[in-house]
């Protein structure tokens, strides 16, 4: 790891000040991706702005029809929250299956979403549950947020502060985990929301994406059998030593069916 300047601001304003005019600075959430990347010298930020001392960025707030989770809330906190599990069980299932216990104790929802790792779990939840990404500058709809592999709609100086999940009528998440890392080889969030059925896939493409054929099939009939015979095009999917694009295409359908079953369909 190369040297850098470390900052732990106590407020969002102070964090903003450090970021401004400092193109090589990076925000540090739980560091579960950024620190390993820096250790491998694949990233060389001039400054790290550790957001852990900004109290307003952590916590889970329940409103009538939504749950808002602060960016610095850890996966373990989301997984342990009775408020989350009673309202969006699929989200607790997802959080409790990320990495391992120690990764869940440090890793944060904001860090995971802002990183848009193609194999991370949370992007499927944000997109599938039609969440809103809240930053210090604006609110971004899930459909506009993930723009590519490790790419999002966030500006270079923008700070993701929270994610607001509207309560779905029902939702389920299923993933085929890489047996070593627990990253999703393919993971699918299926949700029946106020605006119809949404199906979001992670692990298979460059970034989390929706599958409209599955959404229409499930809108007509919310059951796993509605997806029978539906094939996913492998041509745009990821292939690596863990799974070929064809295998991922197959897994997407299987995981979608399991997610529907988990949602009670």
């Amino acid at each position, binding site marked *: *790891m*190369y*040297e*850098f*300047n*470390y900052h*732990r601001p106590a407020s969002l304003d102070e964090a903003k000040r450090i970021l401004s005019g400092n193109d090589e600075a990076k925000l*540090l959430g739980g*560091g*579960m991706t950024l*620190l*390993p990347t*820096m*250790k491998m010298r694949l990233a060389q930020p001039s400054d*790290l702005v*550790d957001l*852990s001392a900004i109290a307003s960025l952590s916590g889970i707030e329940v409103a009538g029809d939504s749950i808002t989770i602060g960016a610095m809330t850890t996966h*373990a906190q989301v997984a*342990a929250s009775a408020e989350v599990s009673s309202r969006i069980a699929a989200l607790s299932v997802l959080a409790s299956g990320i*990495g*391992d*216990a*120690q*990764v869940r*104790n*440090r890793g944060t929802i904001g860090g995971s979403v802002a990183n848009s790792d193609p194999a991370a779990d949370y992007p499927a939840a944000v997109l599938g549950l039609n969440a809103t990404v809240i930053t210090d500058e604006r609110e971004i709809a899930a459909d506009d947020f993930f723009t590519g592999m490790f790419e999002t709609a966030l500006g270079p100086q923008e700070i993701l502060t929270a994610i607001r999940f509207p309560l779905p009528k029902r939702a389920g998440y299923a993933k085929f985990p890489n047996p*070593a*890392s*627990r990253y999703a080889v393919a993971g699918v969030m299926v949700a029946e929301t106020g605006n119809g059925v949404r199906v979001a896939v992670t692990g298979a493409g460059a970034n989390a994406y929706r599958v409209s054929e599955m959404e229409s099939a499930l809108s007509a009939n919310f059951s796993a059998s509605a997806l029978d015979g539906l094939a996913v095009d492998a041509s745009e999917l990821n292939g690596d030593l863990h799974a070929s694009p064809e295998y991922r295409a197959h897994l997407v359908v299987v995981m979608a069916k399991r997610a529907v079953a988990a949602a009670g369909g």
Partner: protein
Amino acid sequence: MPSTVSFTLNGEPVSAEVSSRTLLVDMIREQLGRTGTHVGCDTSQCGACVIHVDGVSVKSCTMLALQADGADVVTIEGVARNGELHPMQAAFREHHGLQCGFCTPGMIMSALDLLQTNPDPSEGEVREWLEGNLCRCTGYQNIVKAVLSAAATMRG
């Protein structure tokens, strides 16, 4: 630029001069001389470096020393009381939960975190929780046995 990091280590205040890139595990081992915490992989995979920071288990090879400033840190050295092995340590010895012992400090710190929230875990829950702790010797059987037995002892 070196900066001073201070935290509580096993109940005692400690501090050291570190650079920004000093990992917490390196500060603990090399600067504070507590070598019970091991480095197996240095890539967040093996769990040999698991310690507790502010009450929860973390991989200390994947934390900066600077991030621990002001924290409450507990390592394997802080687990025994008055020269008596902690029930978890005693159970590992009793059930042959270790062979070379390299993974053991991390296994114990991880298992203790499990019992904080789940004092009566099933065998499956123990296995799942220890996902992030690799052992190259035992085959895990006796580690799981040791954790279940310690849990029973600790429940009293």
